[in-house]
């Protein structure tokens, strides 16, 4: 038995180092044009890209004739792979909590996202707080443990939120009563209060940081000072002030977008991405000047008051004004169609194929600071690749294969052909369960038969 396992390991070991060539595809590199050609993958990285490539001996060949190859899709706003609770809503500043602590690698949404061509996602805290919890970038390495999902080296982030969501807790009547009407109300209840909440937090963080800076200076001078008390809430904001943590801010209306950038200017930090940013087109000039990226929906609108001025031209208009724009999902379902969401940027506002595809690949990579690793098909980058059967910026297309780090994580043919076996296995388990559990026919009197 031991021998058998050893043999299996030996057989598996070279797989990791294996060379794969994807041949005859329409390669949409995003960075360097679109052409018919091949991509060579070695040790999980893209080793060669071209119309004609040298096929190394012993390489695994994936024939992609009549198919399209694009970089793995990156979703800059997702809440999958968590344990369900993503809003620490009890306080208006919850920068002490971290999404990293609740990663659930068995969330089926990871596999479904893969089947939709997503290879990387920015997993965010919810939007109940002006300053929410810490965030983490994951690769959709389905089947691996939580630690292995983390995009190694990617800058961690923190979620901020403006507008209706963070002020909702200040209006427990669902926003329909007067502001702060009931005793249970949680500050803030207005956009003014949201601004103040963020300012108060950074005011505190600045003082906290000064204490630590002074301590470090004294240590550097050879003194032996008493260190300041560690504050986990302010620690995250200190990292923001030091540029060691990205701010991803949920926002809708132009006024609040401008407000947040001015607060950030005052405290000397940058907003890395404005999330949703449905009225970003109204202040695109200011967003470009601040240097924030914008991650928006393609065409969601009118579901709440702050979304009534949303336009499907938002992404293209902001792009035209010099903002780096990505299209995100914020939704486990929409996440599976970001390719066609990008297609909408071509329809609304006339983006080119490459500009549109960049909105779900290279642009979110830039926004997350991982464009040296992913986001385009270029030599040296991670072999995170998706094969579609048809032109991918369309709902007529479906994902055929997905590779992450050169490994195949999704294969539609295998998925479909494995279904009968899986169904049989499930039936077997169901039958077993039926036998194990005594039938409870009829209605028990009294407690209604409810247990647990």
């Amino acid at each position, binding site marked *: 038995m031991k021998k058998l396992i050893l043999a299996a390991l030996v057989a598996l070991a070279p797989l990791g180092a294996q060379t794969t060539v994807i041949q005859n595809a329409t390669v949409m590199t995003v960075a360097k044009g679109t052409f018919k050609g091949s991509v060579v993958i070695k040790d999980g990285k893209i080793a060669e890209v071209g119309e004609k490539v040298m096929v190394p001996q012993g390489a695994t060949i994936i024939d992609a004739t009549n198919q399209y190859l694009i970089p793995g899709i990156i979703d800059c706003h997702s809440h999958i792979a968590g344990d369900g609770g993503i809003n620490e809503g009890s306080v208006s500043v919850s920068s002490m909590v971290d999404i990293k602590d609740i990663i659930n690698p068995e969330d089926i949404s990871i596999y479904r996202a893969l089947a939709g061509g997503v290879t990387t996602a920015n997993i965010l805290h919810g939007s109940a707080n002006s300053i929410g919890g810490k965030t983490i970038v994951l690769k959709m390495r389905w089947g691996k443990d939580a630690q292995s999902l983390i995009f190694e080296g990617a800058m961690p982030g923190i979620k901020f939120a403006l507008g209706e969501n963070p002020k909702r807790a200040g209006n427990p009547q669902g926003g329909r009563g007067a502001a702060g009407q009931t005793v249970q109300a949680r500050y803030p209840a207005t956009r003014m209060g949201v601004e103040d909440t963020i300012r108060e937090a950074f005011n505190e963080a600045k003082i906290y940081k000064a204490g630590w800076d002074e301590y470090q200076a004294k240590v550097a001078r050879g003194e032996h000072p008493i260190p300041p008390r560690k504050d986990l809430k302010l620690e995250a904001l200190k990292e923001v002030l030091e540029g060691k943590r990205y701010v991803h801010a949920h926002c809708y209306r132009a006024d609040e977008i401008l407000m947040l950038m001015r607060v950030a200017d005052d405290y000397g930090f940058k907003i890395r991405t404005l999330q949703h940013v449905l009225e970003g087109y109204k202040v695109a000039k200011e967003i470009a000047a601040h240097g924030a990226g914008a991650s928006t929906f393609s065409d969601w*609108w009118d579901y709440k008051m702050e979304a009534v001025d949303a336009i499907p031209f938002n992404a293209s208009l902001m792009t035209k004004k010099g903002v780096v724009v990505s299209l995100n999902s914020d939704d486990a379902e929409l996440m599976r169609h970001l390719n066609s969401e990008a297609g909408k940027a*071509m329809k609304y506002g006339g983006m080119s194929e490459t500009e549109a595809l960049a909105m779900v690949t290279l642009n979110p990579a830039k926004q997350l600071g991982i464009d040296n690793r992913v986001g385009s098909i270029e030599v040296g980058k991670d072999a995170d690749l998706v094969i579609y059967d048809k032109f991918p910026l369309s709902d007529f297309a479906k994902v055929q294969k997905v590779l992450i780090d050169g490994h195949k994580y999704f294969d539609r043919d295998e998925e479909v052909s494995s279904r009968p076996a899986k169904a049989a296995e499930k039936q077997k388990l169901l039958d077993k369960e039926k036998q194990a*559990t005594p039938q409870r026919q009829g209605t028990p009197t009294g407690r209604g038969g409810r247990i647990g």
Partner: protein
Amino acid sequence: MKLLGILLACGVAAFAAGETILIRDADVYPVAGKEMKGVSLLIQDGKIVDIAAKIVPAKGVRIVEAKGMRVYPGMIDSGTELGLSEVPAVRETVDTGELGEFMPQLKALVAVNPDSEHFGVVRVNGITSAMTFPSSGGGGGGRFGGGSQQLISGQAALIHTDGWTWEDMEIKRSAAMSVAFPSLGGRGGRGGGQIPDSMLEMLGQTGVAGGAANARRAYDDAIAKLNDYFDNARRYQKAKAAHLADFKTDLKFEAMLPVLEGKVPVAVTGARASTIQNAVQWAKKQNIKLVILQPREIGKAAADLKAENVPVIFGRVLALPETEDSAYDEAFTLPGEAYKAGVKIAFGTFTNEFVRNIPYQAATAVAFGLPYEEALKAVTINPAQIWGVSDQIGSVEKGKVADLVVTDGDILEIQTQIKHLYIKGKEVSLENKQTRLNQRYLNRN
């Protein structure tokens, strides 16, 4: 000057109403037949009066050159709350989901706001008509009113997506009676979200048997209530026919008459196959016409649907699987499965926000097994047949209402641009709130 303005306005209005338009040299995709390349199409008095290789225009006819462009019939969304719900999160803007358990007398049509911003947004993507439902729906409107308590929520209307008034927009004021057919383990409220059959079977087997028994009791109670109501409506029908001396008009039962006579179908949300089967058998017993909305599985119900000729309106194709171990593409493949089982299908979006994306839903269904022609039919002629107006809309044919979409490509493809839009033969502006905001802020300095 003022006078001139008024005169001008009158002149334009009069012209638009009676305008004769010749769309020249277009590729017509009529749905009703084979594609016709390089033909001309004459629109007069709101109707398509001629389609031919060459039409010599009379004097004064406006000519639209459409070389290389395609002409499709306007698309129909079979499940919306258009005109009734503006911003789902704001109660004051929502008019779906009235109070009361049996409310067949309510008419969606009379509450349609012709100036809803949604109309401008959806029609420029080629959706020229829509079913608008009075019930609580995917848009969430019903949660404010009594929506979740309703068994009969009123009459859904088929409307055009353009018009000065709701009378103007009306195609069929009572196109369906919206009924919340009960289902085991939850009311059949629109939006689905019920426990799938496979899990329900498990529940019956395991510890929550009592829960299942309670669910069965609640289901039986609701069915009995519904049957009682139909029985009473029939008594009313008989009493009326008998001209009894003490007969008094009852608005609710009056509204039920067309349903009992089989003139208006009952529209029922049935997410699960078992609910669909139950609804089909119930409708057969009641001898009424039935349309199933938002199925999430067809499976064993396919035979019943086909046998009883009951059509289904698919909700959002872009939906997550029902359970953790369902196939990832379960919702994408469903329309194709239903078609292959011989069931008549159409599409609905059930959320105003997504109405404009109905062609892309159809495209997803094509990617996962529905033949292309059937997908196109499912947003044009099929719904026209299902809602009883295929003599008027749903295809490009002589004599039909001129609801036409002129495009630069495949109407189901995202990148395709709409070039011209005609509703009841009137050219409709492609401008809307969103294009205006786009222009305004593109020009911002």
